[in-house]
């Protein structure tokens, strides 16, 4: 069935990837899902130095969604290269490494280190994490900072660069255009929305960090709208993320202009979700007599 694709020069057997931070480095989910069947694996954000993350509680369920305030907890790049990459090397699926830093130079340093690893097929720049003071939103909410960051990383590596955008902006197309102009090979959107939840009985914040990022079905309509707006203004591929739970959701993103999608929160509810989505896309193509999913991209009317 027509699902093969190439995004930013990365060849994939289907356009369904797993979103950063919702699949770890693949090891735990591999007990429940065949990693070889995924379009690509995007690993949890890695930083140069280990990060402790935010104080608990870090999770709060909301209506058809969830808030998280993980705060990019990770063991740093050397641990990642030594432990996570060898595991992922056992699979045929392309690995895209999501990176973040406090400065453009840190992103560039990470990019250089990862360029030496043959199994890394691309980088996703996280400039959109709402849960940390540094290495997130301060780049993704300012078009000059976005542009400067992407240019710096572009000089440091030949790997395909996907820039992951934040929805916490007034006009996402401004940031998307800046990233594209600075040399991004693709844009992915959206990361989580900054949110908050308070327990009415105890009068306490439900998250240790007070604020967190909203994800899941609740954010899907906004994600679809932002993908549609962005696809109108950039020529590079747009990757849709946000609340995708099933095949129909994925189709909606293709119609809005996404060339591929990432499955996030759905992995927590059903580790098989990405594979079920692949199957449901195939069924949709069959039902609508389409030979390739690409015939759907941007075809909303």
């Amino acid at each position, binding site marked *: 069935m027509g699902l093969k694709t190439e995004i930013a020069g990365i060849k994939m057997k289907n356009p369904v990837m797993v979103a950063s931070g919702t699949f770890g480095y693949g090891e*735990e989910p591999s007990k429940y899902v065949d990693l070889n069947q995924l379009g690509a694996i995007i690993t949890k954000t890695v930083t140069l130095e280990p990060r402790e*993350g935010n104080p608990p509680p870090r999770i709060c369920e909301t209506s058809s969604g969830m808030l998280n305030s993980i705060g990019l907890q990770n063991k740093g790049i050397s641990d990642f290269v030594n432990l996570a990459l060898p595991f992922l090397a056992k699979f045929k699926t392309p690995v895209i490494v999501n990176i973040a830093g406090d400065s453009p130079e840190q992103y560039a340093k990470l990019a250089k280190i990862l360029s030496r690893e043959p199994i890394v097929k691309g980088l996703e720049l996280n400039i959109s994490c709402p849960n940390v003071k540094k290495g997130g939103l301060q780049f993704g909410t300012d078009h000059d900072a976005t542009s400067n960051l992407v240019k710096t990383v572009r000089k440091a590596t030949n790997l395909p660069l996907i820039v992951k955008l934040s929805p916490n902006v007034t006009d996402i197309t401004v940031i998307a255009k800046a990233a594209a102009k600075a040399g991004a090979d693709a844009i992915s959107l959206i990361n989580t929305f900054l949110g908050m939840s308070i327990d009415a009985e105890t009068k306490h914040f439900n998250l240790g960090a007070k604020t967190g990022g909203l994800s899941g079905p609740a954010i899907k309509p906004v994600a679809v709208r932002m993908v549609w707006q962005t696809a109108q203004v950039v020529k590079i591929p747009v990757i849709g993320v946000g609340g995708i739970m099933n095949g129909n959701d994925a189709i909606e993103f293709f119609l809005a202009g996404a060339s591929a999608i990432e499955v996030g929160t759905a992995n*927590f509810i059903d580790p098989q979700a990405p594979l079920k989505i692949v199957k449901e896309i195939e069924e949709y193509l069959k039902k609508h007599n389409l030979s390739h999913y690409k015939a759907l991209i941007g075809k909303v009317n």
Partner: protein
Amino acid sequence: MPKQENCRILQHQQIASTVFKLTLSSPNLCQEAKPGQFVNIRVSSKYDPLLRRPLSLHRIIKKDNAFQLLYEVVGKGTAILSQTKPGDDLDILGPLGSGFSLPSEKQTIILVGGGMGVAPLVNLAEKIKDQRPKTKDQIIAFIGAGTKAKLYCEKDFKQIADKVLISTDDGSHGEKGFVSDLLYSRLTIHDSRPASIYACGPYAMLEAISNIARKNKIPCQVSMEAKMACGIGTCMGCVIKTKNGYKKVCDDGPVFDAAEIIWD
């Protein structure tokens, strides 16, 4: 290996006004599960509630290839779960997490359960009886609850344990007071035989038990809780503070050495 599987409901009993005992079929789980582990259940195919709900393994019934959960209805997820019927299938991930670890030599096993915290301790006690007939461990169960109507599994413990001590906050059954105070009063007359404490219950109780264990130099394992998203160790959402940094309740736990935890 843990699995994602549809488990058939064999029995679903209401044992108190808000408490249910759910019996499910799973050969894999019965084979693999250790006391202290849990399952993560998708209670609804709708998106609200969105996340799975974690419940401890309460009993393993090997001869029926079945396992039991004991849960209290506290919110919308457990309310939906309580409506399910024998013959229905539930989407379950498990067994998950680390279990209790058992010492190799003969022990006085001290179980301390508060409220619904008794659930995994029944599984532990049965396993000890089942697997360690030779060591002849003495099992002493301390169980506590707010009031008599909320004290569960007394019968189960009376069948397995050598001694069962009970407390209720309001004095309606057993001694009046917290189960941690009951443990404290009995430990002062504790002899020098090797002992271990296994505790599950509300946070404040576990903290109190942990202090008692430390003062009496008794090894203590506690089963902790946290809000979970994935339940399998990928999201980093369920961490608690330990002397070795943040640890994941779903994956490094839910059972921890009490001495490792940094209590708030």
